[in-house]
């Protein structure tokens, strides 16, 4: 057997190695580096970048839906094991490595070589005005400052609470900001101080000053590949290939890679390839396919990426169509049944309403252990979010449809089924359709979150664009999604007019 044939056979029978990342730039860069190292070693790779949050990425790894993603030892200790911070980086690594293997058969490869930690950043003019050089200075000046902090930082015991305790940090106000907007917020002066990571490229992009942690509060955390049981037990060669990165990325290298992605807007694939070549980890002849970078505005960008957009639009439509079809088949009969059974109706409708209030990221995270990642949890989430408007409108529409006419038709000998089919449903149809329209438009918008569980769709460029601070990429998902919402609304509006009975 020739080597080439052997490779083909291996590729044909092998389930791809699934490489994932969390939705921020450094995670994208590291995951892409993992993917290229694996491809260089002959493995087929399935990329799932931008998984919603720690719970979703780690949940997917535990469930065996993904094989590897970059994680930080501190996050493993505090956010996953829920233990107290350990000030020493090596001790932290040892703790998570042994606990993850013991509890879940999930494994930390040797650290990549750079430490990352929280970095409080301010604008230079803020630093000058209040004389801020260290976190002790920040603590002193904090009553005059407004802090813009990520929800993660506000909640983690080694975040805001620790900052309060150690440095007396008590800002005038704390605003909760998503990672993707905090830099813009501080640069615009909307907040005075933000939490970042020491390796963030955006700190340099916005010319922010990082304050020195003079009392050594934030323990340094190491980044490492977190790999699944399958990879370790069934594909040890893949784990071995990934470990070639261990100890090779120092903090300067990582910061410069992040800057190239976040500040210079370079393609993640190119940045990862260059880094791997420079480090001599992959041969310099290795090729990566990258889309040519489009100059100019959003129109040119969309045109360059039209094939991607079409694929994402197709997937988006699929998600919306299947989840809406299931929601209609379930919610309309439910609404009709509730109208027959009024005693429990309001409570039942309210339950579907409560579903609506569950934050989508939380709902998706709940479902990972049951459904894994990919299209299934996305469909279930979209289905659940579509129920309320349809159940409510069906129930109310049928209940309130011409009660006098219904009573008279009943008295003249219409059966319950005939009343429903010929009187109540036709008269309620416009109201029901209004609910269906509402549900469909919400569904098109919510389906962008499917990207957080690797289900694709127009959320893919939105999530990636937010993580990589690339406005055109965000618009490449947001504009088609908005257009789709309008088209869906218009189409269902036409259906609504068609089903509206003459009277």
């Amino acid at each position: 057997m020739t080597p080439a044939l052997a490779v083909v056979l291996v590729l044909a029978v092998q389930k791809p190695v699934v490489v994932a990342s969390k939705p921020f730039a450094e995670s994208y860069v590291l995951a892409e580096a993992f993917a290229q190292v694996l491809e260089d070693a002959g493995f087929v790779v399935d990329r799932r970048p931008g998984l919603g949050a720690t719970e979703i990425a780690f949940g997917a790894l535990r469930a065996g839906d993904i094989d590897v993603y970059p994680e930080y030892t501190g996050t493993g200790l505090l956010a996953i094991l829920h233990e107290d911070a350990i000030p020493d980086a090596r001790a932290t690594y040892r703790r998570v490595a042994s606990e993850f293997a013991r509890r879940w058969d999930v494994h930390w490869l040797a650290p990549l070589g750079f430490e990352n930690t929280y970095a409080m950043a301010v604008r230079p003019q803020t630093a000058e005005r209040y004389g801020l050089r260290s976190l002790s200075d920040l603590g002193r000046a904090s009553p005059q400052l407004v802090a813009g902090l990520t929800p993660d930082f506000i909640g983690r015991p080694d975040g805001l609470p620790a900052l309060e305790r150690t440095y007396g940090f008590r800002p005038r106000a704390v605003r909760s900001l998503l990672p993707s907007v905090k830099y813009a917020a501080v640069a615009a002066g909307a907040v005075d101080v933000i939490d970042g990571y020491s390796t963030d490229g955006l700190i340099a992009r916005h010319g922010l000053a990082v304050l020195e942690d003079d009392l050594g509060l934030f323990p340094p955390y190491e980044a490492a590949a977190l790999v699944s049981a399958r990879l370790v037990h069934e594909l040890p060669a893949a784990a071995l290939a990934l470990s070639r990165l261990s100890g090779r990325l120092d903090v300067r290298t990582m910061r410069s890679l992040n800057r190239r992605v976040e500040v210079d807007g370079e393609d993640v694939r190119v940045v990862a390839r260059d880094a791997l070549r420079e480090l001599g980890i992959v041969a310099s002849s290795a090729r990566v396919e990258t889309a040519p970078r489009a100059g100019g505005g959003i129109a040119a960008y969309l045109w360059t990426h039209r094939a991607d957009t079409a694929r994402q639009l197709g997937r988006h439509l699929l998600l919306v169509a299947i989840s809406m079809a299931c929601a209609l088949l379930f919610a309309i009969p439910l609404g009709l049944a509730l109208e027959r059974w009024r005693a429990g109706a309001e409570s039942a409708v309210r339950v579907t309403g409560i579903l609506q209030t569950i934050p989508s990221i939380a709902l998706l995270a709940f479902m990972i252990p049951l459904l894994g990642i990919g299209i299934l949890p996305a469909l279930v989430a979209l289905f659940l979010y579509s129920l309320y408007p349809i159940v409510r409108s069906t129930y109310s529409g049928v209940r309130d449809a011409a009660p006098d006419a219904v009573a008279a038709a009943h008295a003249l000998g219409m059966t319950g089924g005939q009343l429903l089919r010929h009187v109540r449903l036709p008269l309620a149809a416009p109201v029901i359709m209004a609910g269906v329209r509402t549900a469909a438009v919400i569904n098109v918008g919510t389906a962008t979150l499917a990207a957080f569980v690797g289900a694709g769709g127009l959320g893919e460029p939105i999530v990636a664009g937010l993580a990589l601070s690339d406005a055109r990429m965000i618009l490449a998902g947001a504009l088609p999604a908005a257009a789709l919402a309008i088209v869906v609304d218009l189409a269902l509006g036409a259906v609504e007019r068609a089903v509206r009975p003459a009277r």
Partner: protein
Amino acid sequence: MSALRAEGVTRRFGDVVALDGVTLQVEPEECVALVGESGSGKTTLLGCFNRLTVPESGRITVLGDDVAAVDPVRLRRRVGYVPQDGGLLPHWTVERNVALVPWLLGRSDGPKRAAEALDLVGLSAATFGARYPSALSGGQRQRVAIARAVAAHPGVLLMDEPFGALDAITRFELQRAFAELRRRIRATVVLVTHDLREAFLLADRVAVFRAGRIEQLSTPELLQREPATPYVRRLLETAGV
């Protein structure tokens, strides 16, 4: 044999006794008016005849059948019914509304029956058949509701305050139209009304209801001449008849 019979019929709603052992017989092609205040039990008794109301005790027969023993849907298709508000289906044309019961009975002559029935209430099928109820006046709607009730030639016609929601002139016109209709069809009629004048004008006999019982049942003439109780006397005085 009586067309309609109620024997010792009792019905309570919670603590309220709506019907308290009522007995009433209506002869074929007779029109009996049930008169009384709100809550006196007249509408409850009307509903017993097409099983919209199920008595707790007592027996109801319609055209010889015990209503408890027959399929209520088939019973209702044999009994015409006119509610106070018309109750026309707003998304059906006048013709389709009037042809409702023939259609429910699976008959193919609905349009013809509808045209005849509209003619009986003084409306032209050519003019009104294709209209929707929203394009009719209140009086026209009530005429259509009466046409719908008689389109399948039911032996029994139940009317629940059919002219109660109309202005005085329209009501007078419809009362005349109804009297004319009765001359042309052969139906036993029970008419619920709170208007004693209307009862005297349209009915062969009048039953005065009070607190779930029939206070007096007689012809209009006898009722006026010999009120049986002080309540009936007072009712006559209030009505000014």
